[in-house]
């Protein structure tokens, strides 16, 4: 039987070990999420969002700068309206930034890619991106290829 002093010491060491494990896991194995810290909201309308889902990443130049907050249908234009949360660190995106829905790899998840424009004005909270490219829907693409209905004969 160990003395009570030793038991308390071992119990303390055990908790210390657990805290070390917590720090290790938090630092080494996880991402703090794209939307940690202050964010602001911008939106964009697409005629088709394909398989884009809420929480999908929003990236510019391959760097993740935010995530998709929600996707809804505009009741007037019947366009899909994608609301994104962008990290406050990137608060100087030009006003004429364009947004496209891209796919990571052939079978990867869909995400929103932003392409910076040249305007000196920056996008503010609640602003809307005007230039957008919809998702490429593979079925439509194959259909066009098979039946050559694109009208663009050579």
């Amino acid at each position: 039987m160990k003395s009570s002093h030793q038991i308390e010491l071992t119990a303390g060491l055990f908790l210390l070990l657990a805290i070390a494990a917590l720090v290790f896991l938090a630092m080494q194995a996880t991402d703090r999420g794209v939307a940690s810290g202050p964010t602001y909201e911008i939106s964009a309308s697409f005629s088709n969002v394909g398989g884009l889902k809420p929480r999908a990443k929003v990236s510019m130049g391959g760097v993740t700068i935010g995530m998709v907050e929600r996707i809804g249908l505009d009741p007037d234009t019947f366009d899909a309206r994608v609301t994104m949360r962008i990290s406050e660190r990137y608060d100087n995106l030009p006003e004429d930034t364009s947004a496209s829905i891209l796919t990571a790899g052939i079978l990867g998840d869909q995400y929103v890619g932003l392409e910076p424009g040249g305007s000196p004005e920056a996008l503010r909270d609640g602003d809307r991106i005007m230039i957008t490219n919809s998702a490429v829907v593979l079925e439509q693409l194959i259909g066009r290829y098979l039946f050559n209905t694109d009208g663009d004969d050579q």
Partner: protein
Amino acid sequence: MTPDTPGNRLFDRPLRELGRALLFLFTAISRMRFSRLQLTETLRQIYFAGVRSLVIIVTCGFFVGLVLTLQTYDTLTRFGAGDAVSTVLALSLFRELGPVLTALLFAGRAGTSITAEIGLMRATEQLDALDLMAIDPMERIVQPRLIAGLIALPALVLIFNVTAIVGGVFFAVFLMGNDPVTFWSNMQASVELGRDFFGGMIKAVAFGFVAAWLAVWFGWSARPTSEGVALATTQTVIATAITVLILDFILSAFML
């Protein structure tokens, strides 16, 4: 009293048992007192429930990580997606396997010994002796074990997760020669601290609470005979396993 129909009798006993267990829990929490002695006793219980479970947790964690990586790596390479093995490993560990397996092992290792200890105290009238000495057994026996379970299980889950990941690294990087940088960066890219990791830790706290409560309760309510203590110990494992797995589903459904 309700009439003693067969249908009532079927549900009567388990319902009353549940009610008594809840009442017991409320009594234990409402009489919570914090003193120097209480802290010392809680630390001792953390030692018995936590430190003494380290060997089984570390061994099982390592081999779970190993076999999980082995199986998913084998499957994923068929689709040319072997790099995703660290994603699968970390997500399934943090969200499900870590908390659930640790809780089941904890019930077998620490829960049973808590139940047997308190049950024997009941059988040998030590609890009554404490009462006679004007020492509240709730305060001296029950509360330290409840708090210890609440602290020790999440701590064990953290250690389990780390050793399982070490097992995964051992298999994927050292045995299969995968690139360690890809391994870690894929894991970091796909695991989110709040949702995946702390979501799993919320489960761990909930499971620790349930496991400690059930272990203490079955010991407390054990019939004061050797069969009674044996039965109570068995019931602890069964009840904890069932409750943890049901609770796991409910918590997952809420969090996803």
